[in-house]
């Protein structure tokens, strides 16, 4: 079930919210668990047992780590948990990638052709973080299976994040408060996220479809395509996080922010502190720092960076293009750390932003190119070496047609709109107008998003299959 669907917005969500606030407080986690299981089952009935088994594994391992006497036993159960979760991810997400590459040596191992269970990359990372945090003593094991399962399966973040750490919501599982202020904040984030996805991300996706279908490409058309892809990924993914955070707040959970205007960064380093924050911090805390982080000698540090970015790339997809995508960032990050960081601090911000844009857009060429051949074609086309015109009639048509969409997306990717609204709210005279206009604007956005939904059909989030 997708958030951006009529079945979710007008069937599932109103029923779940209504029943949630009717049931007694002590039953609310159980109800959320049932609702989340239904949500998952609706979209992925076949692989439900995989998720259930992974949840049970995390729960049992947490208890075993808690009960274990001695560091060796605790470490054993922690590693067991990581292996169990990792094995599931390996089999369903990476097995065929590994087999394909082994078969290049001349073997003929049959592919498993297993579908990718929805959200497996998210919930396995959540469970791994939980068991490691129990091992590290950062949290006590959760003895209540319902509460633990609710944490893992909580439907707002189940299939596309953010990756929620158990430690951030452990208390909220036990006790949480509800208020109109929280509820309305949640509605605001939800509606804004829905609008970002349906009104902006989907429009950019349509541009991308038109590009792929065109047999009259140009250099400019390629650049516009990858700009659209960059913006689409941002709006799509951050919209999902907005919706997750919003719905979480409606139910009394305070989830951490996952995006902080990443496309306004002035370096790749800064970008990765703003983009998919929950993944970046997860990799930092559970892979990079345990490997020694940057408190090691230079060769080891380089190795650590390469491993983390290999993981980052592969997390996004089982393909060499994703490995290269991770490697691309690893190289740039090392260069920024060793050589460029001071320079970037001292040059005008317009130049540093240009530097960033010229690096980030090509990065998504790796992301989008499923084969090495596609990668070569795309880079050749973007750099003018593919015997394409600079512009042509098709490019002009689509640029003209999507100009306002691009403008809205570019401005919307910055903090300018929220700063402008905040400035208006800071004015006592205008605060009353803003407070009156806000419900109206939210209603208009919801109805506009509904209009697009009703007119369209299947409407998947990009990170759906991670």
């Amino acid at each position: 079930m997708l958030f951006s669907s009529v079945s979710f917005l007008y069937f599932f969500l109103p029923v779940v919210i209504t029943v949630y606030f009717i049931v007694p407080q002590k039953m609310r986690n159980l109800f959320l668990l049932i609702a989340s299981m239904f949500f998952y089952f609706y979209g992925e009935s076949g692989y439900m047992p995989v998720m259930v088994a992974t949840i049970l594994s995390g729960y049992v391992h947490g208890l075993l780590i808690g009960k274990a006497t001695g560091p060796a036993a605790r470490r054993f159960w922690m590693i067991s948990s990581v292996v169990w979760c990792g094995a599931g991810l390996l089999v369903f997400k990476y097995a065929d990638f590994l087999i394909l590459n082994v078969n290049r040596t001349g073997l003929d191992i049959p592919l498993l052709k297993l579908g990718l269970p929805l959200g497996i990359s998210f919930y396995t990372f959540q469970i791994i973080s939980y068991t490691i945090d129990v091992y590290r003593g950062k949290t006590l094991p959760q003895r209540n299976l319902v509460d633990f399962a609710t944490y893992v399966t909580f439907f707002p973040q189940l299939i596309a994040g953010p990756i929620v750490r158990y430690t951030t919501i452990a208390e909220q599982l036990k006790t949480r408060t509800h208020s109109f202020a929280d509820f309305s904040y949640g509605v605001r984030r939800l509606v804004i996220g829905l609008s970002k996805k349906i009104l902006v991300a989907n429009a950019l996706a349509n541009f991308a479809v038109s590009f792929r279908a065109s047999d009259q490409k140009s250099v400019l058309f390629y650049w516009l395509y990858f700009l659209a892809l960059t913006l689409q990924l941002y709006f799509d993914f951050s919209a999902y996080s907005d919706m997750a955070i919003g719905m979480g707040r409606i139910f009394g959970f305070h989830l951490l922010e996952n995006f902080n205007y990443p496309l306004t960064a002035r370096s790749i380093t800064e970008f990765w502190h703003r983009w998919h924050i929950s993944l970046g911090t997860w990799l930092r805390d559970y892979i990079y720092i345990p490997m020694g982080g940057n408190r090691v000698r230079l060769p080891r540090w380089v190795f650590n960076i390469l491993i983390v970015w290999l993981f980052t790339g592969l997390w996004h997809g089982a393909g060499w293009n994703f490995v290269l995508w991770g490697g691309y960032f690893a190289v740039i990050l090392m260069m920024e750390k060793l050589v460029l960081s001071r320079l970037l601090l001292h040059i005008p911000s317009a130049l540093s932003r240009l530097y960033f844009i010229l690096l980030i857009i090509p990065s998504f060429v790796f992301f989008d190119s499923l084969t090495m051949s596609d990668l070569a074609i795309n880079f050749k086309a973007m750099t003018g070496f593919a015997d394409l015109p600079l512009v042509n009639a098709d490019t002009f048509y689509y640029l003209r047609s999507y100009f306002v969409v691009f403008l809205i997306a570019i401005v919307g990717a910055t903090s300018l709109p929220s700063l402008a609204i905040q400035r208006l709210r800071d004015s006592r005279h205008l605060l009353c107008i803003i407070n009156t206009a806000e419900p109206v604007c939210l209603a208009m956005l919801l109805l506009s998003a509904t209009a697009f939904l009703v007119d369209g059909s299947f409407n998947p989030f990009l990170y759906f299959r991670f």
Partner: protein
Amino acid sequence: MSEQHKSKIIAVGFMVLLLSGLMTHLFCPKESVSYSERRLMQQFPPLSASRLFSKEWTEKFELYTLDQFVLRDRFRQLKALLVFDVFRQMDNNKIYVIGQDVFKLEYRLDEESVRKASDRIDDIALNYFAGSKVFYALIPDKSMYADPATGYPILDYARLSGILEAETGSAVPISLYDELDADSYFRTDIHWKQEELLLVLDKLGHSLGFEPDNQYTEKTLAPFYGGYYGQSALNISPDELTYLYNDAILNGEATDRIKGEPLKIYNPDDFRSVDPYNVFLGGPVAVIDVINPVAEAKRELVIFRDSYASSLVPLMLPYYSRITLIDLRYVPYSKIPEFIKPAGQDVLFLYSALLANSSFLLR
């Protein structure tokens, strides 16, 4: 308004909107047909233990929630207004509007498809009509007459017809481009207007060997909401549908060859159906025989056609004793001998340029 009041209004308003959507979905009567979209609307998919939450069931359920959403046409209209007026996009679902004229964005030339269309014409001409005079005529899409200054890409008609002419060896081309213009087509529909086809009739007559006298009485039905009207989802002013008749046309007898049922040359009752264009020869029928019992000459014509021919054939009826229409989108061409015995009939392939560009539709 205080923050507290605002929070309450947002929270309550949000739930009211969602619950209203749910309640109206549950309790409002369901639509079986969409007249604006000319299709059946998805009903609630049958439930069973085995089907529940199967991929097929959930897909149908998702479609059901969209198709049966209350005020669906109004929401589609809102979306169209947002796309054109707020986002300033050039088209909405590949539909665009210039003034009060609605067009569809179809401009990618599929040369392979055009060659296949040509091969099909040659195959039929050589295998079934070796001794006949065989012609083909390509009907330009209305977008080809739109003002190019508006910046909409259009199908390269010259290139398409050039490929067809170069590749088709067994049929004589009849160009209709100069016999039509922007006013020859309905504003809200893909089709041409019958009353604007007199020059086309003259051109065909010149090639096929008849001389139209063009004496008709007009009958007009209104309002005509063409196929593009619903697709545009905008408040475009409707067309009028005019049909022409004279004694020969009124005396004509049409038969659906596959069902064995009579058809009317013009059926005004169909004007209130899902597709008002079905007024002409009952709409999409695979094989039709149209007889002119008072024809002076015993000439026969076979037309391989799409929907455009439905409004042209009545005008040709006075000059033939029999016209057989075959729609190869519904009948595989291997079945032609079941309907036609070659006996020196004139043969005309009359296809829109868009169909030639999508010849996979021909069976």
